[in-house]
């Protein structure tokens, strides 16, 4: 294999390019997309566990009426930080990690386009995480105004809020740099012959997601900066007494916030679009329409933001417009579901763990999509806004949409990363355990919301007791399932299954990533492959 100019001058035997720095400082200095991809994933998992512990604190308190486990002020901090940590700390970095590992492999590129910036965009995250977690220990505790940070409540809060604002700034900067890197890599480093319309779906969804990130992260940064100056420097952007408007924050926030939902969902769609064809042994149905549907979802996501604000008292015309626009999103989303279904139709299907998680994703995400449709109807949303119905809805979309497909990705690409197969039986247990526990946790929350339980309350009337108890039991079961998951992953890394992964462990898989050995050597595609 030819080599590009780098530091390995000696012969490295067969096709083993495992020449990499061994010092512990490697984690700070590495510019290798595989190292950075793995670091993103470990960071993500650490945040996932932190956010999960917060969620269990919430569910423990809500197990039964009355105050038992946490005080109301801590409860609000837990709900707030759970949201921020899971979205910015767990889900987004997980998919950036997959992108780092897999995009160069899928596109036939030697690395990400900006390798040093890649290192920097990762290393911005740990300080942000320290600010977030550390804010629990400062006077006044962590931010407690909800992850949406609505003023004036967030203006009232203590210094934990400032730490959160800075953390959001830092994570936003990291996301923007990551996006620039991904866009440049996809547009410039594709192997010869790989036209845009030949790219794997994962690359397409990430390309579109990266544009969404670049468009919305500065908006969020602007919103939290205005919050910061309102808090400390006497501005009144969100204070009516000074000519401002608290609702303006919500408009700005959700102009970021709604595309953010798709920032989380689209890469997940990409993962699913890779895995379903593999295990159906049949090409993806409607590749072109998938690309168009993804792009239209992304565009629509910019014009529906105020459906999060029906109860603020928008004018009737505004409510109607946002209702129609929101309902419209169901069309491209339905197209995607149908495409995946048609991919499976008359395939040769086998149900390994990655496929199971993708089917779980389809099942749960569709449910979340349907409750989204229910919520899109303004009059129904008036009843359900800020209730547990909404909590159930977005967990069906986020946990199913993002987390299940992230699990699918780990099982699917894990053999490529580690060189070992995971243990199929354990993977299946993890799937069924997660699927059942997830539904026990979140399905009853629809009922709680319908019956009238608001979200973000630490205590509730006795009529909500039973479903809350069920939900809490499910939550703890779901939490323990993820401890089981990390055991599976560690056993995979250490080769406990005893089965070495072939270069292409899945017989139905397509794509350049399967042309390199498993585990993927430290340097790959130093000479670009040619795609016919």
């Amino acid at each position, binding site marked *: 294999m030819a080599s590009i100019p780098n530091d390995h001058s000696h012969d490295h035997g067969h096709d083993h390019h495992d020449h990499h720095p061994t010092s512990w400082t490697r984690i700070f200095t590495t510019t290798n997309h595989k190292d950075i991809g793995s670091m993103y994933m470990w960071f993500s998992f650490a945040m996932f566990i932190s956010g999960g512990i917060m969620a269990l604190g919430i569910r423990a308190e809500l197990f039964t009426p009355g105050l038992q486990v946490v005080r109301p002020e801590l409860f609000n901090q837990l709900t707030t930080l759970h949201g921020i940590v899971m979205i910015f700390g767990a889900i987004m970095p997980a998919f950036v990690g997959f992108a780092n590992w897999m995009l160069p492999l899928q596109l036939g590129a030697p690395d990400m386009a900006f390798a040093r910036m890649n290192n920097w965009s990762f290393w911005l995250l740990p300080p942000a995480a320290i600010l977030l977690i550390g804010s629990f220990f400062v006077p006044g505790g962590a931010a407690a105004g909800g992850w949406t940070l609505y003023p004036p409540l967030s203006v009232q809060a*203590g210094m934990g809020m400032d730490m959160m604002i800075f953390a959001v700034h830092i994570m936003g900067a990291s996301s923007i740099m990551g996006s620039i890197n991904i866009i440049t890599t996809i547009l410039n480093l594709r192997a010869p012959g790989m036209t845009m319309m030949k790219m794997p779906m994962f690359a397409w969804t990430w390309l579109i997601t990266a544009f969404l990130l670049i468009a919305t992260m500065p908006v969020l940064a602007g919103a939290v900066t205005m919050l910061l100056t309102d808090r400390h420097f006497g501005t009144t952007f969100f204070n009516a007494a000074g000519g401002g408007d608290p609702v303006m924050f919500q408009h700005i926030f959700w102009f970021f916030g709604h595309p953010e939902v798709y920032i989380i969902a689209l890469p997940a769609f990409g993962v699913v679009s890779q895995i379903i064809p593999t295990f159906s042994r049949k090409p993806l149905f409607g590749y072109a329409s998938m690309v168009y549907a993804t792009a239209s979802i992304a565009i629509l996501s910019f014009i529906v933001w105020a459906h999060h604000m029906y*109860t603020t008292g928008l004018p009737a015309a505004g409510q109607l417009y946002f209702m129609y626009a929101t309902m419209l999103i169901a069309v491209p989303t*339905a197209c995607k579901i149908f495409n995946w279904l048609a991919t499976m139709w008359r395939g040769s*299907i*086998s149900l390994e763990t990655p496929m199971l998680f993708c089917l779980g994703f389809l099942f749960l995400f569709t449910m979340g999509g349907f409750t989204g449709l229910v919520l899109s109807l303004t009059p129904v949303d008036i009843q359900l806004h800020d209730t547990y119905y909404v909590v159930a809805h977005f967990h069906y979309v986020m946990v199913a949409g993002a987390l299940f497909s992230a699990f699918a990705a780990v099982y699917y690409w894990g053999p490529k990363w580690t060189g070992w197969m995971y243990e199929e039986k354990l993977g299946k247990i993890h799937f069924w355990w997660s699927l059942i526990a997830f539904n026990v946790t979140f399905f009853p929350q629809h009922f709680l919301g319908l019956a009238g339980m608001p979200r973000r309350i630490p205590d509730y009337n006795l009529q909500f007791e039973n479903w809350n108890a069920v939900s809490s039991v499910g939550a703890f079961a779901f939490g323990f399932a993820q401890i089981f998951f990390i055991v599976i992953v560690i056993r995979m890394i250490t080769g406990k299954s005893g089965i070495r992964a072939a270069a292409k462990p899945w017989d139905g898989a397509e794509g350049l990533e399967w042309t390199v050995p498993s585990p993927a050597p430290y340097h790959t595609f130093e000479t670009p492959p040619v795609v016919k």
Partner: protein
Amino acid sequence: MSLPHGLTFNDKKVVVTVMHGKSLKQLFSSAAVALFGLVAAGAAFADWAIDLQKPNSAVAEQMYHLHVVITLICVIIFVLVFGVMFYSLYAHRKSKGHKAANFHENATVEVVWTVIPFLILLVMAWPATKAVLDMRDSSAPEMTIKVTGYQWKWGYDYIHDGFGYVSTLATPLAQIQNQEVKGANYLLEVDNPLVVPVGKKIRLLITANDVLHAWWVPALGVKQDAIPGFIRDAWFRADRPGIYRGNCAELCGKEHGYMPIVVEVKTQADYDKWLAAQKDKYGVGKVAAPVIDTKTYPKDELIALGKTVYETAGCTGCHGPAGKGVPGQFPALDGSKVVNGAASDQIALLLNGKPGTAMASFKHLSDKDIAAVIDYTRNAWSNKAAESAQPVDVAKVRYGGKLPADAAPSADAKPAEMAKPAETAKPAEAAVPGALPAKIYFAAGKKDLPSDVKVSLDATLAFLKGRANAKVDITGFTDQTGNREANLELAKERAKAVRAALEAAGIAKDRINMKPPTEITGGVDNKEARRVEINPA
């Protein structure tokens, strides 16, 4: 597009035995029910409720039916789509030797499955649009109430009836802390519910004092954010009398879960009785001297009362039952400089609040309650303050340093009552003849004074003659017919006519204020709406 009620989940009964108490057994039964009995549960068993609350207004009814229809549509599509998927998973399995086909596009099906969802959405959009337009049509209300969200209580102002009160959580702290058995309305009960007549279109003007709140009563189909510095409106017309409960639905800080909303819908006759009692209680339209409680109470009695006030008036929300506050957010009272310093400063703080913080004004409490809670905080925990307060000290601060000259000192003050806004003592005038407000009713479209105007004018003259410094406000109104611009003009002309009559009777110009109305119409019917009101300024 609306379905009859019977088609909903509402009427099904639960087959599962419900167990109370928190045994391990219940946990298993909970989990088991969650897995197998989801659809079996029904609203009949409130504890396992799975549906929206029973609507009690036309708007809530529409919301309810929309939800049923869209849910059914979703369930049908879900079953169809996943039926296909499960068939495929079953039939097209590699393990069954199924060989993969190789098709990967088909323009026709792709167009079909784009168009069909679109058509379904169109069908849904129609009733939803209708519901939105109904929901937002707050015109021509029969009654208007101003709702103010505070951290963490609700204020209700009956703006046309001249009184208002505060509504606070009534659940005892001991229940929340699991020291007492929780009642059926745990966390959904208040001291003073909002009371409205059945069948009347009630318009709510909703705002907030500090942060965002949301006024939500599911059965009435109203959820509207309360936004500080802005007024939003919402409306409802309750179909049946009864008590309807809801919560604040927008995160508003620490005690967000503890500011319920209770609406009591009464028949018109009961409502009228209630209204009369309230007007009496708040002294609306009466000219009475404020009753100043000048009695000196024993310190122990005040401290004992103060503990109850502290725990029920909302103090514990921020400052905690043990007076520790929340470091960095809410100051501790235990060891506080204010609490251990000059009593007059603490009185002023309670009466006026501290702008820009969650410390609201508590001037709706009686002088005695305020004095009591101050004495309580000054002697509770580790506090041993030198100064203490008596009700009369509070009254002094309330009236700006000294007691009003015409106050009627009463050594025998009323017995202590909790958080009774009755004593929102408005410094009124001494009891001399001349009962205001007076109302003068006009003929439709006319601005000429009616023949019976003399009664009202005499009352006003008597009122003004008895009080050297008093002034009056004159406000004109019209009925609902005709265009708004013309009505505004007419209302003004009517007020001017009354002013001219008063001036002709010898009242100085500067004792008459022309006060534009907050709402140009009002009253029970058009006849009553065409009026000029004369109120003490």
